[in-house]
Protein backbone atom coordinates (compact mmCIF):
# COMPACT_ATOMS: atom_id res chain seq x y z
CA UNK A 1 0.00 0.00 0.00
CA UNK A 2 3.05 2.29 0.36
CA UNK A 3 3.43 2.74 -3.38
CA UNK A 4 -0.30 3.47 -3.73
CA UNK A 5 0.02 5.91 -0.85
CA UNK A 6 2.90 7.66 -2.59
CA UNK A 7 0.86 7.96 -5.79
CA UNK A 8 -2.12 9.29 -3.86
CA UNK A 9 0.03 11.89 -2.11
CA UNK A 10 1.37 13.11 -5.44
CA UNK A 11 -2.13 13.23 -6.85
CA UNK A 12 -3.94 14.84 -3.91
CA UNK A 13 -1.42 16.72 -1.79
CA UNK A 14 1.00 18.31 -4.19
CA UNK A 15 -0.03 21.87 -3.50
CA UNK A 16 1.75 24.67 -1.71
CA UNK A 17 -0.25 24.21 1.49
CA UNK A 18 0.94 20.63 2.08
CA UNK A 19 4.16 19.46 3.76
CA UNK A 20 5.45 15.91 3.93
CA UNK A 21 7.58 15.00 6.97
CA UNK A 22 9.24 11.63 7.30
CA UNK A 23 11.17 10.12 10.16
CA UNK A 24 13.97 9.02 7.83
CA UNK A 25 11.83 6.40 6.11
CA UNK A 26 10.68 6.00 2.54
CA UNK A 27 13.72 4.66 0.70
CA UNK A 28 12.63 3.35 -2.73
CA UNK A 29 9.12 4.67 -2.19
CA UNK A 30 9.09 8.41 -1.62
CA UNK A 31 11.83 9.63 -3.92
CA UNK A 32 9.28 11.11 -6.30
CA UNK A 33 7.49 12.89 -3.46
CA UNK A 34 10.85 14.22 -2.32
CA UNK A 35 11.73 15.61 -5.72
CA UNK A 36 8.24 16.89 -6.45
CA UNK A 37 7.59 18.52 -3.09
CA UNK A 38 11.05 20.11 -2.92
CA UNK A 39 11.39 22.17 0.25
CA UNK A 40 7.96 20.92 1.37
CA UNK A 41 9.49 17.46 1.83
CA UNK A 42 11.35 17.32 5.12
CA UNK A 43 13.34 14.35 6.34
CA UNK A 44 13.12 15.17 10.03
CA UNK A 45 15.52 12.39 10.93
CA UNK A 46 15.14 9.80 13.64
CA UNK A 47 13.43 12.19 16.04
CA UNK A 48 9.72 11.56 16.05
CA UNK A 49 8.84 13.77 19.00
CA UNK A 50 10.37 16.76 17.26
CA UNK A 51 8.81 15.77 13.94
CA UNK A 52 5.28 15.75 15.36
CA UNK A 53 5.67 19.08 17.13
CA UNK A 54 7.24 20.65 14.05
CA UNK A 55 4.18 19.42 12.16
CA UNK A 56 1.97 21.13 14.73
CA UNK A 57 3.91 24.36 14.26
CA UNK A 58 3.49 24.16 10.50
CA UNK A 59 -0.19 23.30 10.81
CA UNK A 60 -0.72 26.24 13.18
CA UNK A 61 0.21 28.39 10.20
CA UNK A 62 -2.48 26.86 7.98
CA UNK A 63 -0.30 24.21 6.39
CA UNK A 64 -1.56 20.64 6.14
CA UNK A 65 1.06 18.11 7.11
CA UNK A 66 1.66 14.43 6.51
CA UNK A 67 3.89 12.82 9.13
CA UNK A 68 5.20 9.44 8.08
CA UNK A 69 6.95 6.66 9.95
CA UNK A 70 6.70 3.00 10.80
CA UNK A 71 3.43 2.79 12.71
CA UNK A 72 4.62 2.49 16.33
CA UNK A 73 7.22 5.22 15.87
CA UNK A 74 4.47 7.43 14.54
CA UNK A 75 1.80 7.06 17.25
CA UNK A 76 3.51 5.60 20.33
CA UNK A 77 6.87 7.36 20.63
CA UNK A 78 5.42 10.88 20.20
CA UNK A 79 2.13 10.20 21.96
CA UNK A 80 2.27 13.31 24.13
CA UNK A 81 3.20 15.53 21.20
CA UNK A 82 0.16 14.18 19.34
CA UNK A 83 -2.04 14.78 22.37
CA UNK A 84 -0.83 18.23 23.41
CA UNK A 85 0.37 19.81 20.21
CA UNK A 86 -1.91 18.39 17.53
CA UNK A 87 -5.11 17.24 19.19
CA UNK A 88 -5.54 20.02 21.75
CA UNK A 89 -5.28 22.47 18.87
CA UNK A 90 -7.31 20.38 16.41
CA UNK A 91 -4.66 20.77 13.74
CA UNK A 92 -4.75 19.22 10.25
CA UNK A 93 -1.93 16.75 10.66
CA UNK A 94 -2.17 13.29 9.15
CA UNK A 95 -0.02 10.77 10.98
CA UNK A 96 0.72 7.94 8.61
CA UNK A 97 1.75 4.71 10.26
CA UNK A 98 3.12 2.18 7.85
CA UNK A 99 2.75 -1.47 8.72
CA UNK A 100 -0.32 -1.67 10.91
CA UNK A 101 -0.76 -4.83 12.96
CA UNK A 102 1.95 -7.45 12.46
CA UNK A 103 2.99 -6.14 9.04
CA UNK A 104 6.64 -5.79 10.02
CA UNK A 105 6.56 -9.44 11.07
CA UNK A 106 10.10 -10.72 11.44
CA UNK A 107 11.37 -7.28 12.39
CA UNK A 108 9.96 -7.99 15.80
CA UNK A 109 7.42 -6.68 18.28
CA UNK A 110 8.95 -3.20 18.54
CA UNK A 111 7.87 -2.66 14.94
CA UNK A 112 4.34 -4.04 15.33
CA UNK A 113 1.31 -1.83 15.91
CA UNK A 114 -1.44 -3.71 17.69
CA UNK A 115 -3.01 -0.95 19.78
CA UNK A 116 -2.54 2.03 17.48
CA UNK A 117 -6.20 2.56 16.57
CA UNK A 118 -7.33 2.48 20.18
CA UNK A 119 -4.55 4.84 21.23
CA UNK A 120 -5.41 7.36 18.58
CA UNK A 121 -9.17 6.95 19.02
CA UNK A 122 -8.74 7.75 22.69
CA UNK A 123 -7.31 11.15 21.75
CA UNK A 124 -10.13 11.93 19.35
CA UNK A 125 -7.91 11.43 16.33
CA UNK A 126 -9.85 10.30 13.29
CA UNK A 127 -8.57 6.80 12.58
CA UNK A 128 -8.51 5.59 8.99
CA UNK A 129 -7.68 1.98 8.13
CA UNK A 130 -7.86 1.63 4.35
CA UNK A 131 -8.64 -1.83 3.11
CA UNK A 132 -7.55 -1.31 -0.48
CA UNK A 133 -5.10 0.78 -2.43
CA UNK A 134 -8.00 2.51 -4.17
CA UNK A 135 -9.17 3.97 -0.85
CA UNK A 136 -6.17 6.24 -0.41
CA UNK A 137 -6.95 9.17 -2.74
CA UNK A 138 -10.38 9.76 -1.27
CA UNK A 139 -9.01 9.47 2.28
CA UNK A 140 -6.30 12.05 1.61
CA UNK A 141 -9.00 14.34 0.29
CA UNK A 142 -10.56 14.43 3.74
CA UNK A 143 -7.68 15.58 5.96
CA UNK A 144 -8.98 18.59 7.88
CA UNK A 145 -8.03 17.72 11.47
CA UNK A 146 -5.98 15.26 13.51
CA UNK A 147 -5.89 12.02 11.54
CA UNK A 148 -4.16 8.67 11.82
CA UNK A 149 -3.82 6.65 8.63
CA UNK A 150 -2.83 3.03 9.14
CA UNK A 151 -1.24 1.50 6.06
CA UNK A 152 -1.21 -2.24 5.42
CA UNK A 153 -1.57 -4.44 2.35
CA UNK A 154 -4.34 -4.71 -0.20
CA UNK A 155 -5.48 -8.35 -0.04
CA UNK A 156 -8.38 -8.27 -2.49
CA UNK A 157 -8.89 -11.39 -4.62
CA UNK A 158 -6.88 -11.19 -7.84
CA UNK A 159 -8.59 -9.27 -10.60
CA UNK A 160 -11.34 -7.86 -8.42
CA UNK A 161 -12.32 -4.22 -8.38
CA UNK A 162 -13.52 -2.67 -5.14
CA UNK A 163 -16.55 -0.50 -4.46
CA UNK A 164 -16.00 3.21 -4.04
CA UNK A 165 -14.70 4.21 -0.61
CA UNK A 166 -17.06 4.37 2.32
CA UNK A 167 -16.16 4.01 6.00
CA UNK A 168 -18.25 0.80 6.07
CA UNK A 169 -18.69 -1.10 2.80
CA UNK A 170 -20.22 -4.43 1.96
CA UNK A 171 -17.64 -5.85 -0.39
CA UNK A 172 -19.09 -9.33 -0.76
CA UNK A 173 -22.71 -10.39 -0.26
CA UNK A 174 -23.57 -13.47 1.73
CA UNK A 175 -26.49 -14.92 3.64
CA UNK A 176 -24.67 -16.91 6.32
CA UNK A 177 -24.10 -14.19 8.87
CA UNK A 178 -21.86 -11.15 8.57
CA UNK A 179 -18.16 -10.45 8.83
CA UNK A 180 -16.99 -7.01 9.87
CA UNK A 181 -13.27 -6.84 9.16
CA UNK A 182 -10.91 -3.99 9.94
CA UNK A 183 -9.06 -2.63 6.94
CA UNK A 184 -6.91 -5.10 5.02
CA UNK A 185 -8.34 -8.11 6.87
CA UNK A 186 -11.49 -7.52 4.81
CA UNK A 187 -9.52 -8.46 1.73
CA UNK A 188 -8.37 -11.65 3.42
CA UNK A 189 -11.94 -12.61 4.29
CA UNK A 190 -13.09 -11.76 0.80
CA UNK A 191 -10.35 -13.85 -0.77
CA UNK A 192 -10.87 -16.73 1.65
CA UNK A 193 -14.62 -17.02 1.06
CA UNK A 194 -15.42 -15.69 -2.39
CA UNK A 195 -15.70 -19.11 -4.01
CA UNK A 196 -18.38 -20.28 -1.57
CA UNK A 197 -22.05 -20.25 -2.46
CA UNK A 198 -23.73 -17.03 -1.37
CA UNK A 199 -26.00 -18.98 0.98
CA UNK A 200 -23.02 -20.70 2.62
CA UNK A 201 -20.91 -17.66 3.27
CA UNK A 202 -21.32 -14.51 5.34
CA UNK A 203 -21.37 -11.07 3.84
CA UNK A 204 -18.05 -9.27 4.24
CA UNK A 205 -17.88 -5.66 5.29
CA UNK A 206 -14.71 -3.67 5.03
CA UNK A 207 -14.54 -1.34 8.01
CA UNK A 208 -12.16 1.56 7.57
CA UNK A 209 -13.34 3.97 10.28
CA UNK A 210 -14.53 3.47 13.83
CA UNK A 211 -17.06 6.24 14.26
CA UNK A 212 -20.45 4.81 15.26
CA UNK A 213 -22.29 7.28 13.08
CA UNK A 214 -20.60 5.81 10.02
CA UNK A 215 -22.26 2.43 10.44
CA UNK A 216 -25.04 2.10 7.86
CA UNK A 217 -28.49 0.85 8.81
CA UNK A 218 -28.08 -1.96 6.31
CA UNK A 219 -25.32 -3.41 8.46
CA UNK A 220 -27.47 -3.42 11.57
CA UNK A 221 -30.36 -5.03 9.69
CA UNK A 222 -28.03 -7.76 8.48
CA UNK A 223 -26.60 -8.64 11.85
CA UNK A 224 -29.70 -8.66 14.01
CA UNK A 225 -30.33 -12.16 15.37
CA UNK A 226 -27.67 -13.58 13.08
CA UNK A 227 -24.02 -14.54 13.54
CA UNK A 228 -21.56 -11.66 13.57
CA UNK A 229 -17.86 -12.23 13.05
CA UNK A 230 -15.46 -9.40 13.86
CA UNK A 231 -11.92 -9.71 12.54
CA UNK A 232 -9.18 -7.24 13.32
CA UNK A 233 -5.41 -7.17 13.47
CA UNK A 234 -5.65 -5.08 16.61
CA UNK A 235 -5.99 -5.86 20.29
CA UNK A 236 -9.44 -6.25 21.81
CA UNK A 237 -9.13 -3.21 24.05
CA UNK A 238 -10.48 -0.25 22.13
CA UNK A 239 -10.64 -2.16 18.89
CA UNK A 240 -13.37 -2.70 16.32
CA UNK A 241 -15.06 -5.52 18.23
CA UNK A 242 -15.35 -3.55 21.42
CA UNK A 243 -16.59 -0.47 19.62
CA UNK A 244 -19.06 -2.44 17.56
CA UNK A 245 -20.41 -4.24 20.61
CA UNK A 246 -21.05 -0.84 22.16
CA UNK A 247 -22.91 0.28 19.03
CA UNK A 248 -25.07 -2.84 19.07
CA UNK A 249 -25.76 -2.50 22.76
CA UNK A 250 -26.75 1.15 22.37
CA UNK A 251 -29.30 0.11 19.75
CA UNK A 252 -30.53 -2.84 21.80
CA UNK A 253 -29.60 -5.15 18.97
CA UNK A 254 -28.79 -8.78 19.64
CA UNK A 255 -26.77 -11.04 17.42
CA UNK A 256 -27.16 -14.81 17.55
CA UNK A 257 -23.40 -15.33 17.93
CA UNK A 258 -20.55 -12.86 18.42
CA UNK A 259 -17.27 -14.30 17.20
CA UNK A 260 -14.34 -11.96 17.76
CA UNK A 261 -10.87 -12.59 16.38
CA UNK A 262 -8.46 -9.84 17.47
CA UNK A 263 -4.68 -9.65 17.60
CA UNK A 264 -3.59 -11.79 20.52
CA UNK A 265 -0.11 -10.46 20.97
CA UNK A 266 2.51 -13.18 21.12
CA UNK A 267 0.79 -16.23 22.61
CA UNK A 268 3.73 -18.59 22.05
CA UNK A 269 6.42 -16.03 22.69
CA UNK A 270 7.76 -16.67 19.20
CA UNK A 271 8.11 -14.13 16.42
CA UNK A 272 7.54 -14.64 12.72
CA UNK A 273 6.08 -13.19 9.56
CA UNK A 274 2.81 -11.34 9.43
CA UNK A 275 1.21 -14.53 8.12
CA UNK A 276 2.62 -16.46 11.09
CA UNK A 277 1.07 -14.06 13.57
CA UNK A 278 -2.20 -13.85 11.69
CA UNK A 279 -2.35 -17.62 11.75
CA UNK A 280 -1.88 -17.63 15.51
CA UNK A 281 -4.78 -15.21 15.82
CA UNK A 282 -7.05 -17.00 13.34
CA UNK A 283 -6.82 -14.14 10.91
CA UNK A 284 -5.11 -15.82 7.95
CA UNK A 285 -6.89 -17.12 4.86
CA UNK A 286 -7.25 -20.73 5.96
CA UNK A 287 -8.32 -19.86 9.50
CA UNK A 288 -10.99 -17.49 8.25
CA UNK A 289 -12.23 -20.07 5.79
CA UNK A 290 -12.40 -22.83 8.38
CA UNK A 291 -14.14 -20.45 10.76
CA UNK A 292 -17.03 -20.51 8.27
CA UNK A 293 -16.81 -23.94 6.67
CA UNK A 294 -15.86 -25.77 9.86
Amino acid at each position, binding site marked *: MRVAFSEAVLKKCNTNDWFFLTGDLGFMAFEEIQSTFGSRFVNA*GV*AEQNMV*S*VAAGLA*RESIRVIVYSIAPFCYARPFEQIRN*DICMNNLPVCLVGNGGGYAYGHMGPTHHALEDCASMNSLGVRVLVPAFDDDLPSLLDQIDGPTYLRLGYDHRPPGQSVPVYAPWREIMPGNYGTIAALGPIAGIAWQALCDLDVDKRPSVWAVCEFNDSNIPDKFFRQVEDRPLYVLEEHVTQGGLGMNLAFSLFARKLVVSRFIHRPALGYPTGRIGSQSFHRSQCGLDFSSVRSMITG
Partner: protein
Amino acid sequence: MNDPFTRLLRKTKLRLLQLHREANCGHIGGNFSCIDSLMTLHHLVMRPDDRFVLSKGHAAGALYVTLWSLGQLSDTDLKTFIADNTLLPGHPSGKGIPGLIFNTGSLGHGPSLAAGLALAARHKGLTHQIFCLCSDGEWQEGSCWEALIFSVHWRLENLTLLIDQNGLQGFGRTIDIISCDDLTPRITAFGADVQKVNGHDPQAIAECLKRPGIGLPRVIILETVKGHGLPFEHRLESHYLPFSEADYQAACETIEEDIL
Protein backbone atom coordinates in the same frame (compact mmCIF):
# COMPACT_ATOMS: atom_id res chain seq x y z
CA MET B 1 16.79 53.64 36.21
CA ASN B 2 13.44 55.35 36.09
CA ASP B 3 12.59 55.34 32.41
CA PRO B 4 9.05 54.43 31.30
CA PHE B 5 9.91 50.81 30.58
CA THR B 6 11.60 50.31 33.94
CA ARG B 7 8.59 51.81 35.71
CA LEU B 8 6.26 49.58 33.72
CA LEU B 9 8.41 46.57 34.53
CA ARG B 10 8.19 47.26 38.26
CA LYS B 11 4.45 47.83 38.04
CA THR B 12 4.09 44.55 36.18
CA LYS B 13 6.13 42.71 38.78
CA LEU B 14 3.82 44.02 41.48
CA ARG B 15 0.87 42.83 39.39
CA LEU B 16 2.53 39.43 39.12
CA LEU B 17 2.90 39.25 42.88
CA GLN B 18 -0.75 40.21 43.31
CA LEU B 19 -1.82 37.68 40.72
CA HIS B 20 -0.09 34.81 42.48
CA ARG B 21 -1.09 35.96 45.92
CA GLU B 22 -4.78 36.29 45.06
CA ALA B 23 -4.77 32.91 43.35
CA ASN B 24 -2.60 31.32 46.05
CA CYS B 25 -0.49 29.96 43.22
CA GLY B 26 3.10 28.72 43.38
CA HIS B 27 5.82 28.71 40.72
CA ILE B 28 6.73 32.23 41.80
CA GLY B 29 10.47 31.69 41.51
CA GLY B 30 10.37 30.61 37.88
CA ASN B 31 8.09 33.52 37.03
CA PHE B 32 10.41 36.06 38.57
CA SER B 33 13.46 34.61 36.90
CA CYS B 34 11.94 35.30 33.48
CA ILE B 35 9.68 38.34 33.90
CA ASP B 36 12.50 40.71 32.94
CA SER B 37 13.18 38.89 29.70
CA LEU B 38 9.50 38.39 28.90
CA MET B 39 8.77 42.08 29.33
CA THR B 40 11.87 43.09 27.39
CA LEU B 41 11.01 40.75 24.57
CA HIS B 42 7.39 41.82 24.28
CA HIS B 43 7.90 45.56 24.76
CA LEU B 44 11.29 46.27 23.25
CA VAL B 45 11.94 43.56 20.70
CA MET B 46 8.92 41.80 19.23
CA ARG B 47 7.02 43.25 16.29
CA PRO B 48 3.28 42.75 15.87
CA ASP B 49 3.55 39.72 13.58
CA ASP B 50 6.24 37.94 15.57
CA ARG B 51 5.32 34.71 17.33
CA PHE B 52 6.04 33.69 20.88
CA VAL B 53 5.90 30.24 22.48
CA LEU B 54 6.16 29.89 26.25
CA SER B 55 7.76 26.48 26.50
CA LYS B 56 8.21 26.82 30.27
CA GLY B 57 4.46 26.90 30.70
CA HIS B 58 4.76 27.13 34.49
CA ALA B 59 5.67 30.78 33.95
CA ALA B 60 2.15 31.42 32.71
CA GLY B 61 1.60 34.13 35.32
CA ALA B 62 4.56 36.13 34.04
CA LEU B 63 3.23 35.85 30.51
CA TYR B 64 -0.29 36.84 31.54
CA VAL B 65 0.89 39.99 33.29
CA THR B 66 3.13 40.80 30.35
CA LEU B 67 0.06 40.61 28.11
CA TRP B 68 -1.73 42.73 30.71
CA SER B 69 1.04 45.31 30.50
CA LEU B 70 0.47 45.38 26.73
CA GLY B 71 -3.25 45.93 27.23
CA GLN B 72 -4.13 42.52 25.80
CA LEU B 73 -5.50 41.22 29.10
CA SER B 74 -7.51 43.22 31.62
CA ASP B 75 -7.60 43.15 35.42
CA THR B 76 -10.93 41.41 35.06
CA ASP B 77 -9.23 38.72 32.97
CA LEU B 78 -6.45 38.34 35.52
CA LYS B 79 -8.95 37.85 38.33
CA THR B 80 -9.90 34.57 36.66
CA PHE B 81 -6.34 33.18 36.89
CA ILE B 82 -6.58 29.48 37.81
CA ALA B 83 -10.25 29.95 38.72
CA ASP B 84 -13.13 27.89 37.37
CA ASN B 85 -14.27 28.70 33.85
CA THR B 86 -11.03 30.56 33.10
CA LEU B 87 -9.01 31.07 29.95
CA LEU B 88 -5.96 31.55 32.20
CA PRO B 89 -5.00 28.20 33.72
CA GLY B 90 -1.75 27.59 35.55
CA HIS B 91 -0.15 26.57 32.28
CA PRO B 92 -1.33 28.30 29.08
CA SER B 93 -4.18 26.60 27.27
CA GLY B 94 -3.39 28.27 23.97
CA LYS B 95 -7.00 29.17 23.36
CA GLY B 96 -8.89 32.43 23.51
CA ILE B 97 -5.98 34.71 24.46
CA PRO B 98 -4.16 36.87 21.89
CA GLY B 99 -0.51 35.99 21.70
CA LEU B 100 -0.93 32.46 22.99
CA ILE B 101 -0.46 29.99 20.18
CA PHE B 102 -0.09 26.66 21.93
CA ASN B 103 -1.02 24.99 25.16
CA THR B 104 2.24 24.39 26.93
CA GLY B 105 3.28 23.08 30.31
CA SER B 106 4.66 19.67 29.55
CA LEU B 107 8.30 20.56 29.08
CA GLY B 108 10.26 20.02 25.92
CA HIS B 109 7.58 20.83 23.36
CA GLY B 110 8.20 24.52 22.72
CA PRO B 111 11.44 24.39 20.73
CA SER B 112 9.93 21.98 18.19
CA LEU B 113 6.68 23.91 17.95
CA ALA B 114 8.67 27.08 17.39
CA ALA B 115 10.77 25.32 14.75
CA GLY B 116 7.58 24.40 12.91
CA LEU B 117 6.41 28.00 13.05
CA ALA B 118 9.80 29.13 11.75
CA LEU B 119 9.72 26.62 8.90
CA ALA B 120 6.22 27.77 7.97
CA ALA B 121 7.30 31.42 7.93
CA ARG B 122 10.22 30.61 5.69
CA HIS B 123 8.00 28.58 3.37
CA LYS B 124 5.58 31.47 3.06
CA GLY B 125 8.30 34.04 2.54
CA LEU B 126 7.28 35.92 5.69
CA THR B 127 9.80 37.90 7.69
CA HIS B 128 8.40 37.62 11.19
CA GLN B 129 10.53 36.14 13.96
CA ILE B 130 9.76 33.23 16.25
CA PHE B 131 10.72 33.41 19.92
CA CYS B 132 10.49 30.59 22.42
CA LEU B 133 11.28 30.78 26.13
CA CYS B 134 12.45 27.59 27.85
CA SER B 135 13.64 26.76 31.33
CA ASP B 136 17.09 25.31 31.92
CA GLY B 137 15.77 22.15 33.59
CA GLU B 138 13.62 21.66 30.50
CA TRP B 139 16.75 20.85 28.52
CA GLN B 140 16.86 17.52 30.30
CA GLU B 141 14.08 16.57 27.87
CA GLY B 142 15.54 14.82 24.84
CA SER B 143 13.02 16.49 22.56
CA CYS B 144 14.76 19.86 23.12
CA TRP B 145 17.92 18.47 21.62
CA GLU B 146 15.96 16.94 18.76
CA ALA B 147 14.57 20.40 18.07
CA LEU B 148 18.01 22.00 18.30
CA ILE B 149 19.54 19.52 15.86
CA PHE B 150 16.64 20.07 13.47
CA SER B 151 16.74 23.86 13.72
CA VAL B 152 20.48 24.06 13.16
CA HIS B 153 20.32 21.65 10.23
CA TRP B 154 17.56 23.65 8.57
CA ARG B 155 19.34 26.90 9.50
CA LEU B 156 16.20 28.43 10.93
CA GLU B 157 17.63 31.90 11.29
CA ASN B 158 14.19 33.30 12.11
CA LEU B 159 14.07 31.27 15.34
CA THR B 160 15.35 32.42 18.72
CA LEU B 161 15.31 30.15 21.75
CA LEU B 162 15.71 31.86 25.11
CA ILE B 163 16.74 29.73 28.05
CA ASP B 164 16.00 30.95 31.55
CA GLN B 165 19.06 29.53 33.26
CA ASN B 166 18.24 30.00 36.93
CA GLY B 167 20.02 26.85 38.08
CA LEU B 168 17.21 25.56 40.25
CA GLN B 169 14.57 23.05 39.29
CA GLY B 170 11.81 21.09 40.97
CA PHE B 171 13.80 19.15 43.52
CA GLY B 172 17.29 20.54 43.54
CA ARG B 173 20.00 22.40 41.66
CA THR B 174 20.75 21.48 38.06
CA ILE B 175 24.41 21.10 38.95
CA ASP B 176 23.47 18.42 41.47
CA ILE B 177 20.90 16.70 39.28
CA ILE B 178 22.63 16.52 35.90
CA SER B 179 26.09 17.94 36.62
CA CYS B 180 25.40 20.97 34.50
CA ASP B 181 25.03 24.54 35.64
CA ASP B 182 25.65 26.17 32.26
CA LEU B 183 24.14 24.93 29.03
CA THR B 184 26.26 27.26 26.91
CA PRO B 185 29.05 24.85 25.88
CA ARG B 186 26.65 22.00 25.19
CA ILE B 187 24.36 24.06 23.00
CA THR B 188 27.30 25.74 21.28
CA ALA B 189 28.59 22.29 20.41
CA PHE B 190 25.37 21.64 18.50
CA GLY B 191 26.12 24.51 16.16
CA ALA B 192 23.61 27.16 17.19
CA ASP B 193 24.40 30.86 17.40
CA VAL B 194 24.70 31.11 21.19
CA GLN B 195 24.91 34.20 23.35
CA LYS B 196 24.87 34.51 27.11
CA VAL B 197 23.46 37.56 28.82
CA ASN B 198 22.35 38.79 32.22
CA GLY B 199 18.68 37.79 32.18
CA HIS B 200 17.74 40.61 34.51
CA ASP B 201 19.23 43.40 32.43
CA PRO B 202 16.61 44.56 29.91
CA GLN B 203 19.02 46.69 27.96
CA ALA B 204 21.51 43.88 27.58
CA ILE B 205 18.77 41.42 26.62
CA ALA B 206 17.36 43.79 24.01
CA GLU B 207 20.77 44.47 22.51
CA CYS B 208 21.43 40.77 22.37
CA LEU B 209 18.13 40.04 20.65
CA LYS B 210 18.49 42.88 18.18
CA ARG B 211 21.94 41.83 17.07
CA PRO B 212 21.83 40.66 13.43
CA GLY B 213 21.77 36.92 13.01
CA ILE B 214 24.38 34.83 11.23
CA GLY B 215 22.06 32.50 9.36
CA LEU B 216 21.55 30.08 12.22
CA PRO B 217 18.93 29.68 14.95
CA ARG B 218 19.87 31.77 17.93
CA VAL B 219 19.98 30.58 21.50
CA ILE B 220 20.10 33.21 24.21
CA ILE B 221 21.20 31.86 27.58
CA LEU B 222 19.66 34.14 30.19
CA GLU B 223 21.66 34.04 33.39
CA THR B 224 18.99 34.48 36.00
CA VAL B 225 18.14 34.04 39.66
CA LYS B 226 15.06 32.14 40.68
CA GLY B 227 12.69 34.49 42.48
CA HIS B 228 14.87 37.39 41.42
CA GLY B 229 14.40 40.51 43.50
CA LEU B 230 12.24 38.82 46.10
CA PRO B 231 13.17 38.17 49.71
CA PHE B 232 13.34 34.45 49.06
CA GLU B 233 15.29 34.56 45.80
CA HIS B 234 17.44 31.59 44.86
CA ARG B 235 15.55 29.26 47.19
CA LEU B 236 14.05 25.99 46.11
CA GLU B 237 10.82 26.74 47.95
CA SER B 238 10.03 29.35 45.34
CA HIS B 239 9.59 26.69 42.67
CA TYR B 240 6.35 25.24 43.96
CA LEU B 241 5.09 26.99 47.07
CA PRO B 242 2.66 29.91 47.04
CA PHE B 243 3.30 33.04 49.12
CA SER B 244 2.49 33.43 52.74
CA GLU B 245 0.95 36.83 53.49
CA ALA B 246 4.19 37.90 55.17
CA ASP B 247 6.24 36.84 52.15
CA TYR B 248 3.86 38.67 49.86
CA GLN B 249 4.10 41.89 51.82
CA ALA B 250 7.85 41.64 52.01
CA ALA B 251 8.08 41.02 48.28
CA CYS B 252 5.88 43.99 47.49
CA GLU B 253 7.96 46.19 49.73
CA THR B 254 11.15 45.07 48.02
CA ILE B 255 9.82 46.01 44.61
CA GLU B 256 8.20 49.23 45.82
CA GLU B 257 11.45 50.29 47.47
CA ASP B 258 13.08 49.75 44.14
CA ILE B 259 10.54 52.11 42.60
CA LEU B 260 11.20 54.78 45.19
